[in-house]
């Protein structure tokens, strides 16, 4: 192994990530087994108590549900939207449209959250208080439980689609044109062409985008926090927000770590399944 160049090429990454990942993960595991509530003196090993508490709390299941909804819809909408834009722009020579579409990427999610929050605000927002009522839409997006979730998804789609768009665009441009010609000759419609050539040849790119999207969505914090604080009620409180609240508002570090471990396990397992399904032999 030591004589294999690939080992040396990979080693720096292995070390760098090993340090910034392995230590925190180990520490996290320890924390999750500890009774560590800041407001109570003393930190001690408490077995699986944190997990028991977690699995008994209503907000965990609530947040899991919200996370699932948020994850599913934002991801699906984002993928479709990004794919449509990439397809629409793949042959365009003008960089202007492409750059325009990529613009939200340079806006930090914190700012995106503020911006959409004030756009959608039902009392003073451009959309919420002016445009929507003008076209007869009488909903207060942010204070209505499902409306709030929709709002958060819109903002997230707005903020994160460009990233996926870029991945898709790059993948699209890597597809040799002969394939399109062959399938076109075979009489494929645009839709058939997409499903016969484009999508299969982009499969690994799509899978990568999807994986990163899922991880990203699970970690979305500031955007939602800024927009709704997880509200109204717990309507937009994702697991990430719950974890943050548990640690930094409720001072229950052990509980937050337990939640973190649960999420880590769930995402790793589902990613493992996805990985085995789509990316092996891709």
């Amino acid at each position: 192994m030591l004589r294999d160049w690939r080992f040396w090429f990979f080693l720096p990454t292995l070390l760098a990530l090993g340090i910034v990942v392995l230590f925190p993960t180990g520490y996290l595991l320890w924390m999750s087994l500890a009774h560590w509530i800041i407001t109570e003196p003393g930190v001690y090993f408490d077995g699986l108590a944190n997990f028991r508490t977690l699995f008994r709390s209503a907000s965990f299941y609530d947040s899991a549900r919200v996370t699932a909804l948020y994850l599913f819809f934002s991801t699906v909408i984002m993928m479709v939207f990004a794919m449509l834009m990439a397809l629409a722009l793949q042959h365009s020579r003008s960089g202007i449209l492409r750059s325009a579409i990529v613009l939200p990427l340079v806006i930090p999610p914190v700012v995106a959250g503020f911006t959409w929050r004030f756009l959608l605000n039902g009392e003073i927002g451009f959309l919420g208080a002016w445009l929507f009522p003008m076209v007869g839409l009488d909903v207060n997006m942010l204070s209505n439980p499902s409306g709030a979730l929709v709002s958060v998804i819109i903002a997230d789609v707005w903020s994160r689609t460009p990233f996926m768009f870029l991945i898709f665009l790059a993948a699209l441009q890597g597809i040799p044109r002969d394939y399109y010609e062959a399938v076109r000759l075979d009489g494929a419609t645009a839709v058939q062409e997409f499903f016969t050539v484009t999508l299969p040849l982009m499969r690994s790119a799509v899978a990568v985008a999807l994986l990163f999207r899922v991880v990203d969505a699970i970690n979305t914090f500031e955007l939602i926090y800024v927009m709704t604080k997880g509200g109204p009620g717990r309507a937009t409180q994702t697991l990430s927000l719950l974890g943050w609240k548990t640690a930094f508002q409720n001072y229950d570090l052990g509980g937050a770590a337990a939640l973190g471990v649960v999420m880590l396990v769930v995402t790793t397992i589902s990613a493992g399944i996805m990985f085995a399904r789509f990316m092996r032999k891709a």
Partner: protein
Amino acid sequence: MVAIRLQDIRKSYGPVEVIKGVSFEAEQGEFVVFVGPSGCGKSTILRMIAGLEKPDSGEIYFGDDRYTDVPPGKREIGMVFQSYALYPHMSVADNMTVSLRLAGVPKTDRRKRAVEVARMLKLDELLDRKPAELSGGQRQRVAIGRAIVRDPKAFLFDEPLSNLDAALRVETRLEISRLHQQINTTMIYVTHDQTEAMTMADRIVLLDAGQVVQQGTPLELYRNPANLFVATFLGSPKMNVLDVAAVSRDGTTAQLTMAGASHVSVTLPSPETADPKSIGVRPEDTRIVPEGEGVLSGTIISAEHLGSEVLVHTETAAGQIIAKMPPDFSAHAGDTVWVGFNVARAHLFDADGLTINNHARQ
């Protein structure tokens, strides 16, 4: 009936005009072969017929209908790409039956058809492999299979056999010829291979630098090349061409001479014909003969033994000359020999390289 007609097609890539006004017709059921030097635009013409490339000007007709603007999928054309263009994510069977799938043919029927075609192309054992697991030749055959599967109105082949080994090439060539006879579909075929061109074609279209130089049956082109380019392009090894000067002219009879050679007498079509400036003799019309019997003397440079014949390369005062000799002919580099021509089969060319009918022929 005319199946495909191109009318003054032009095409440029950027500033470079690669197709400079090509017109031609393929009859229903005809087997047309495009030949020409590399980069002369053969693939480009094929792609325009398929609709994959829009001509800058000119029209394309299928039958009596103007097809210039019909999208490729509507043209019902089967094409074998020079680059194969196999879908890497599909098995061989799926690759071959994509068109059927797109047309909604059920799976079992598709499989049946795939097996049928695969057997023909010796791919039966590879049906479930992915293209990446095939050798170059195997891939090429899958690409051919894909075009055959859909029973198209016309086939376009872009050098489909270039990666097959000789035996398989002959076989697949005969297969395609047989296929053509069976289904009597118009086929347009691009190749570099002389044998393919000569044996398969009903008609050869010879292209050079984006223009049609000559077209006709293989033997027409081989026997009556319109000019020096055609004469030397067709035939392998290529025609020996020697500069000549007319030493005497008597109406239609001319005495020609070339460097270091005795005179050759030829008959010209009419007294007005210009004097020939060069003479072309194919290797099979050239012989190494006993001393004194030939036209020219020369030195053997090399002898290529092909098994079925020997190609003898000689250096003469008039230039290099290749003679095709029977397999048991023995020749040694450095030997001085005499070269003789079958003048009755010689080709004459004027100063512009245009053919002058040699009336000594036929």
